[in-house]
């Protein structure tokens, strides 16, 4: 897609779909594994089914949303603010 018409790895929709497919199938495999493997846990909640999956997902979303809708509203200024 560049000036010479050369196609790079992620210029192809197919490759992006492959990458996403890898992530999605990884999610599935990990959840199946999580369901059947008896986990060693320091805290009781670590033994809950898919604890780390849910925690990771919720933590990630909450960090991004809090930064975007709360922190950015409070601290964002123009680049020349101090000039």
């Amino acid at each position: 897609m560049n000036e010479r018409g050369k196609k790079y790895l992620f210029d192809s929709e197919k490759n992006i779909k492959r990458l996403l497919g890898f992530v999605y199938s990884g999610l599935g495999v990990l959840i199946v594994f999580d369901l059947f493997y008896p986990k060693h846990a320091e805290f009781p909640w670590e033994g809950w089914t898919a604890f780390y999956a849910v925690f990771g997902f919720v933590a990630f979303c909450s960090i991004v949303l809090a930064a975007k809708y709360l922190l950015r509203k409070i601290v964002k200024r123009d680049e020349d603010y101090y000039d």
Partner: protein
Amino acid sequence: MRTIMINTVPPALIFIVGALLIPLLKGRVKSAYLLFLPVLGMINLLQIPEGTHWVYRFMDYTLIFGKIDRLSLVFGYIFHVISFIAFIYALHVKDDIENISGVVYGGAALGVIFAGDLITLFIFWELLSVSAVFLIWARRTGGALNAGFRYILVHIVGGLCLLAGILIQTYTTGSTEFGYIGLNGAGSYLIFLGFGINCAWPLLHAWLTDAYPESTVTGIIFLSVFTTKSAVYALARAFPGTEALIWIGAAMTAFPIFYAVIENDLRRVLSYSLINQVGFMVCGIGIGTQMAINGAVCHAVNDILFKGLLFMSIGAVMYRTGKTRCTDLGGLYKSMPLTSIFCIIGAASISALPLFSGFVSKSMIMSAAAIEHMPIIWFVLLYASAGVFEHAGIKIPFFAFFSHDSGIRTKEAPVHMLIAMGIAAFLCVFIGSYPWPLYSLLPYPVEYTPYTVSHVLAQTEMLFFCAFAFILLLLSGIYPSEKRALNLDADWFYRKGSQVVVAFLTKIFDELFAGFERLFVKRIPQTLAAVSKRPLTMATQYYASVRGETGTDTEEPSVLPEAASLIPIGIVVLFAVVLLFALTAAFSL
């Protein structure tokens, strides 16, 4: 205690004295010499046995330049390794000031970690700040100049804090030894705070995110290592097991992750990430068990490597494109594929993906928190781990090398930069896959197995679902677009605060000087001139005016000032007389 070392010298000496020769050398000889210094330093360090060396008397104090034990040694090794990598990365740099500053800065850090007494520690601590500021100024932009001044001002305050603490501590304990101090009395609190400023504790951290991104492409590699990690060492030496550090560390891991999401400049994102990672170490030192201290030290070593690698990869982008903002970058994997791969390895390492270095050290700190039954701290650290993956694991490589195609087509990073990144990347993977050589260097025996099925599963599961969240947020358009903007941080207080103070003082001094000008430049000379012209007439007129009589026979308009205007002079004279008397009385007593 005095041990005569025939074949070795204090580790700091090789760097600091070695720096003096740099201006005399040219071309390839200079490059070879810069690479030779850390190699020589490492050979020297390997020859030094554990113990206390280079003990000198200075006035009433004992200066110790070589406190060599397992804690200081591991920092010493990694400082030499990263210096070697950083000098390979910086081989294109022709600026002597930058090269000398880098070498002296590394030497100062070695001086700090091998210092056996508080005075030696303080001397090298100050040298650390002074040499660092030249790495910032070396970029020679207005922004770098101002950020450098702010950097040095904050560190002067920190240094004074440390000095005051050392003086009080020495006075109260009668010893200048640099060992365990613990929070006990004013001196120890001031030392603690002095260390905290260099460690970038919350609210004391803004110098880091303000100044580091303003430094040069190569300067930031050195900066990301020495100041914060030598402060981590100092805390591990003097304040292990101090409960306050657990909470300070946890706060350090948590707050930068939000800033990193909305920050546009990738080197500033990495600076926030640096505070976040140092937070894990500080927390481990606060927990204070052998496992936690091992975890903190191990994570310091790993962070030096993977954070260095990330800074190097973004530095290579800056070197080639002159840009570091997300809004200006994207699609660079097409031009810089190797740099992209190295960046991804750094990102995987900091995110603690299994087989990469962060995995074998961060979990040690978290396990230590779990063993000590600290669920809140454990949750904060786990939450911060998700944040690390967001900003360093995904954001850095994604916005620089993938994302939308910025249209920039440039060359791959120069060979020397690729070699430096390659070495760091290799070490990240090696330590991640085979951590035992590093474990064997840690201060305490390691009884920790990172690779259990539970641990690998838990970490991989969390990271994959974080990635899933990213994909959903990105595809739905909720993920915040990068914006050209500035985000206020704790430096607002002194950057805006100083403007208010300057405006206030300017107003006061303007009025004061205007008053002085009226008095000394106009009124007093006018009066004296008039009096000296016709003293008798003036005295008569003055006498009459004081008595309230108005002269009818005045031929010329009076130039004599009104009596009221002489009051300030009277007050000053009175004040001077009183002062003179007071001084005389004071000295005669």
